[in-house]
């Protein structure tokens, strides 16, 4: 897991990325005029002495961002359509890579594994050794139980005290309205949210042939069908579902990235960095 995370990140992102927040730091960033209410300790007295005007010194904050990585560990995430990488494994690699990336910049990183409820919560830390804890948790994580994404999101919103970046890695197979409510709750608390919607290629296209008896991974419901006869309608409905999610998240200021497990991880990391750049 460590190797995957490191190779994924270092292979493409050699440079540091700046923190979007301005606060306590040693690296000077900019000056601005003093406004009533600003703390006096940030006034640049040397400039005042030279120009008789009050200016506030701004510094670039480097390490005070907190990232919450939420990884869906429900049974549906164990689906691997063509016997390749399961959604769970793909999500774990992504979580590991993001953790490595953030911890290498001394960002506090938390990992929350959930299904019906939060299964494991690793609180945010910025220490380098924290990566090992996260990776171990990801390695021993098993998909189990049904999805209750909305409840989990509300729980996270209630328990996180510090605002930060919430990275949700899930297949979003839950009630859409409830999911949006949960995400809105987080957004209300000023969290920046990135949703990595992890989908298998078969889930997107339904390329099965012949007589198939589908068995739901979570509910164990069985269904006998001819996929070729349903493909057209299925794709249409899935497309509507994805469009709805993208549209709703876009309207809420939530970054949405659909990931096909048959594609490499780069896309997810590019999406994350693009988000960080926008926040600058």
């Amino acid at each position, binding site marked *: 897991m460590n190797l995957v995370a490191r190779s994924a990140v270092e292979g493409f992102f050699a440079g540091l990325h700046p923190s979007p927040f301005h606060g306590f730091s040693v690296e000077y960033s900019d000056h601005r005029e003093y406004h009533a209410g600003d703390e006096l300790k940030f006034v640049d007295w040397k400039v005042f002495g030279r120009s008789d005007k009050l200016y506030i010194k701004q510094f670039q904050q480097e390490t005070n961002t907190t990232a919450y990585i939420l990884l869906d560990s429900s049974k*549906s995430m164990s*689906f691997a359509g063509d016997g390749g990488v399961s959604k769970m494994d793909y999500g774990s690699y992504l979580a590991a890579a993001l953790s490595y990336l953030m911890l290498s910049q001394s960002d506090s990183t938390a990992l929350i594994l959930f299904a019906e409820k939060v299964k494991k919560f690793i609180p945010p830390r910025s220490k380098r050794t924290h990566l090992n804890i996260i990776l171990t948790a990801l390695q021993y994580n098993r998909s189990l139980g049904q999805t209750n994404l909305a409840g989990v999101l509300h729980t996270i919103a209630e328990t996180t005290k510090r605002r930060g970046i919430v990275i949700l890695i899930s*297949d979003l*197979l839950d009630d859409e309205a409830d999911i949006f409510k949960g995400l809105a709750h987080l957004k209300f608390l000023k969290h920046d949210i990135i949703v990595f919607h992890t989908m*298998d290629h*078969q*889930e997107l296209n*339904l390329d*099965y042939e*012949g*007589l*198939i*008896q*589908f*068995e*739901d*991974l*979570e*509910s164990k*419901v069985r*269904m*006998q*069908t*001819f996929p*070729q*006869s*349903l493909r057209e*309608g*299925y794709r249409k*409905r*899935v497309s509507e*579902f994805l469009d709805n999610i993208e549209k709703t998240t876009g309207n809420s200021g939530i970054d949405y990235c659909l990931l096909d497990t048959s594609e490499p991880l780069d896309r997810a990391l590019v999406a994350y960095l693009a988000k960080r750049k926008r926040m600058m």
Partner: protein
Amino acid sequence: MSFIEWIFLLGGLAVAGPLIAHLLAKPRFRRVPFTMLRFLRTGQVESRSRRKLRDLMILLLRCAIIVLIAMLFARPLLHIRYKPSGARPVYYLGLDNSMSMTYSDGDGSYFVRMADSAVDYIRSAQDDALFNICALASGDWMQGLSKGQALAEVKDLKIEPGNTNVGDFLSGLSRISRAEHYYDEVSVLVLSDFTPNTFRQFVNVAEPAAVDRIDYESIVSSQPVSNAAIADAHVVGVVEGKLTINAAVVNYGRIEQNRSLTAGTGADYSYPIEVNLSANQRKSCQVQIEVGSAGRRQSFIPVELNLSEGDGLRQDDIFYLAVSIPGREEENVILAGESTNDMFLIKTAMDTLSRTDSYDTLRIKQVLVNELEASDLDWADVVVCSAVTDRLDDLASNLENFLKAGGRFISFVTETAASGAAKQLWRRDILAALPGQYVRERTYIQPKSCESRAVGVDHIAARSLSNYRIDKILLKGYLECERHPDARLLWQLRNGCGFVYLKPHGRGTSILVNTSVDDSLGSVTKSSASVAFCRYLLGESNQLGEHCFTRNERVMLPVGDSGAAFAGYRQFWVETCDGKTRRAAVVDSFLLVPDPGGIGWVKTLGRPAIYAGVNLPPGETDMTGPDAAELDNVMSRVFATGAEKDISEAGVLREKKNRPLWKLFVWMLILLILVEPAVANRMKR
């Protein structure tokens, strides 16, 4: 509905097959874990129901196909009950358009009067009536006509140069009226001159036709009929360049005829022969016409016999007779015997043959076979050897050349054949069969040859040999012969051994006769059949030929000596009597012309042309009308009406109409077979 062969309905039990298969067969599903079942759910319900519908439809279609096949074999009949309220008038008109109807007296032609009568009859019918018109001479049916269409058809009717065929009309009437108009009111009108030919056909009708009403009119002249005709003509022969023809001239009317008969071949005409005929008299007249001496090649002369004008029907005053005059030929024959005496009998027969044949002259040279020289073969057209000797072996290569050049080599056998020479000749493909061991056993010849029209021998002579009872001639012995692979066995002995073998060599022919030329093995050449036997062996003779046909016959143009020109062609163009160019098929040595297109000349295109004459059938223009009472009697017997109709129908038809349904079933079957794969594939999606 009922079934004629109901036992085949048991075949319908075969529907159990697809039924059982449908019940037992369960689809095999592959189990696959999945997550997004909620997106499948709507479509799944639709898909399963569609699958069930498809399975059911395919099952029903297949069962229906099996049942239909079983029912088709059972030959279903549909019973339709009688519905008198739906009856409508249906008219059947039998209109005589034969050549005799062109007879014209002072009141106009029979044909015009017949057409007028038919028009009046049609006009008097109801407006919704249905008309079926049959032209009695051509046998053409015009069915399901409205009143206007019927009038137009009658006006378009034309004379057909043939005789009437009442059978076509009556069989068509029975078939159509029973099949389509059984419950309609059927009326029949027959308009004809009722010549003896036509009337005889009505007399000979065995089964009466059941109709509701019968009308007929005998179209005859009110005045005595004046008509003479050339009924037939035959070639007698050619003597000193004059062609003699015997012609049969008949007075078919009641008025005495004083006419003159001439024969013409284009520009040349014979002297007219005065012909005086009393009422219904038949006379044979002989006319002669200059045709010149026979040339080297066969020629065809179209001779038109013409009776001078003077009666009411011109068409039967001309007779078309094509005469083929063979080319004069001389044949050099060498008779090679082991001794002078053993060829005596066959030489005598050939001398006789040469004298009797008008066109073939045989120049005979007799030599000893051991003195036979190559120069003799160069001179000869035919070589007849009494036995296979060593001398022939010496001349083998000369014989080969002789045969290649179109010569004819005929070999008889003796008790002791030179086996070495025979084998050598057989290996060199000269002999038609290899003579082997002598069998001293009495036997007879088969009464008929193996092939009725064998090529290479004279088949007319073969028939003569049968008539001479060649099968009664005793053979004292024979040789066991082995037929050459390319040779044909033309005549057999009664014990199955070969008697005459023939092997073609391009234009040449080799024949082996399994008997002696003298009477040592048999007495064929000693019998009265010897001349015919010589003719048989020497091949087809040249004879005068006459080529004339009646309108109803298939015209066959003899290719004759021009056969080489037709070789390799399967069809040929000929000009028919109506001046049109038609295709004729080449079969054996004849050109078959399917339709001569009237009466007159049929001839090949190009030169020299081959002619055949086409004439009216004999007696067609015999204008002797029937007795009115007799006609009434016959027509009332041929067409059963009223109570007679019921009696007639009782044995033939039932109260219900039985309509065969096999056509409907076949169409349904074809439809189902086409629909089945379409349903299977369409519903699978």
